[in-house]
């Protein structure tokens, strides 16, 4: 187990290197520059900025210099907003995004698993239809529409929930719903199909033959087995939620990671793009590793090698 984790971390570092290299050179190959705006109108100002940010050196040298900084824990400074470090952006944005992502994750997992299990096990056809209808809406309606509908209906018209910022717990309800609807749909679909498959297995018959009541058979014997495919989905999904969503953050005026990531790309703010990419890369790689470890804990047949 320890050996496995070390191995996966080493592989993760290699993956990060490939990711950052690809991002760096693609970013440089993309037209546009952070110093093409109003601030750098004169040739002198531009030249000074180029020197300051090493933009006058060959791209490979720039990358080497960048990696040198990263190795020392320095992700650099924004080229657009002077004096603001990349760490400052991540340090400010991530806690906000993470709190919201956590709420959305809990909602998605509990609602998704409940809906999926209910749909799979209910003998009434309409229950299954209602659950699957919700799931279909969740995957097919884009999040900006969901978010705006939530704001219009529950925020503006019914005035049930606040919808600007994240000041109180009540502020979390609408953005968390908007974020979690898609994962709810995916989780409930996965749970349903996996549950239907598990209920057909022979060990369910054996469990019933012991005189274990049906409900207990589901909770004790079926759910754990049915969760395996769901776990492989929800791990990366959580990482994805942690990267923040531009749409939801913009509509609900939340100062999270998602919006600064997208603005950094618009501005060609090279250090910020790189810093964000590496940070999100680390998140996704770690959650993949956590997913594998959790799967191995749930299913003893999985060997981590």
């Amino acid at each position, binding site marked *: 187990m320890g050996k496995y984790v070390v191995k996966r971390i080493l592989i993760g570092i290699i993956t990060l290197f490939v990711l950052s290299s690809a991002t760096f050179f693609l970013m440089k190959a993309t037209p546009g520059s952070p110093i093409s705006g109003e601030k750098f109108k004169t040739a002198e100002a531009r030249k000074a900025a180029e020197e300051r940010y090493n933009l006058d050196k060959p791209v490979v040298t720039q990358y080497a210099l960048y990696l040198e900084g990263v190795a020392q824990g320095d992700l650099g400074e924004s080229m657009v907003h002077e004096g603001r470090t990349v760490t400052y952006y991540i340090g400010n944005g991530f806690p906000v995004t993470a709190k919201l992502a956590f709420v959305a994750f809990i909602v998605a997992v509990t609602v998704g698993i409940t809906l999926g299990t209910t749909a799979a096990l209910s003998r009434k056809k309409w229950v299954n239809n209602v659950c699957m209808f919700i799931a279909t809406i969740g995957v097919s309606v884009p999040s900006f529409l969901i978010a705006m509908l939530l704001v219009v209906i529950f925020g503006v018209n019914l005035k049930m929930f606040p919808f600007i910022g994240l000041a109180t717990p009540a502020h979390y309800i609408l953005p968390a719903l908007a974020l979690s609807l898609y994962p709810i749909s995916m989780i409930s679909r996965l749970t349903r199909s996996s549950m239907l498959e598990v209920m057909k297995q022979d060990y369910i018959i*054996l469990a019933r*033959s012991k*005189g274990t*009541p049906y409900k207990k058979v589901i909770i004790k014997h079926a759910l*754990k*087995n049915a969760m395996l495919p769901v776990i492989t989905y929800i791990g990366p999904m959580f990482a994805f939620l942690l990267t923040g969503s531009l749409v939801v953050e913009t509509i609900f005026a939340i100062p999270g990671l998602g919006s600064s990531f997208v603005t950094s790309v618009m501005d060609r703010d090279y250090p910020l793009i790189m810093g964000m990419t590496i940070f999100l890369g680390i998140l996704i790689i770690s959650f993949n590793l956590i997913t594998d470890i959790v799967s191995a804990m749930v299913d003893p047949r999985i060997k981590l090698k």
Partner: protein
Amino acid sequence: MSAMLEIKNLSTEFSTDNGTVQAVRDVSFEVQKGEILGIVGESGSGKSQTMFSVMGLLAGNGRVATGEILLDGKNISPLAFKSEKEYEDTMSDIRGNDMAMIFQDPMTFLNPVLTIETQLTEPILNHNNVSKAEARQRAIELMAKVGIPSPESRIKQYPHQFSGGMRQRIIIAIALACNPKLIIADEPTTALDVTIQAQVLDLISGLRDELDSSIIMITHDLGVVASLCDRIAIMYGGKIVEIGTADEIFYNPQHPYTKGLLSCIANPEDKEKKELHPIPGSPPDLLNLGDWCPFVDRCEKAMKVCKMKMPSQEVYSDTHQASCWLSHPLAKEGKGE
């Protein structure tokens, strides 16, 4: 002796996309206390589904259509209950407690994500008012009884850490957990290799002597039942075509299907039986069963009447009955066609 299990006119159906499958048709038999009954038949003959009907473990599309199932005098047919909930509640008390089932495939019947301890203590905790520690102690004793070495350490393991034979022993131990009065063994040795088969059969026959339980052995292997069973029922096309004591079935078979099964046993020492004589054809389609003898298409001695009417049961002795037109008095006189 009185009957431990009595089945009267049991019929079980499955609704499928292609129509209704009549898996069990008007089956009646009884098992006495302390008796071992063998039910023999090929795949799809309805032998397993008969017992799944008794246990109330039919798949979702299956249902008991007619009949009574008397367990120690009490009717436990789902038809005897007002609601499904009432039936399930009653059966939850009976399953694993009064009657238990040993399943055929050790590879698929144990839950892969639960420890042996969880799975083996479950029936004990279901039916006895004991603590977890007491249940664990009982589980360890059961494991030792079915011949699993060092049960104290192995109880913490998962099914995939056990071999096929050891898993089958666990399945047997689960069935024995509450000393059931009736044990239904559904092909308990099919998935095992021959040396393990003999050990498992010894284990099962030892149970009767020890617990005085009744045992129903479902199998397609006549060799297995020969040594073990007091009485044997032969099933074909969802019906019992012949039933009798082991001696009657082996030395005085009446139904052509029973005779066919017997000639499928190879005996290298017997010159006459050196060659195998397989029964030609394949089992009937349970979707399209007519009201005539199900064996007619494969029977060497089929007559016109066989395809017209269901043969009635002919009685040969108190214990021996068979359903075949050949046994009809008219056929014996040579007047049948």
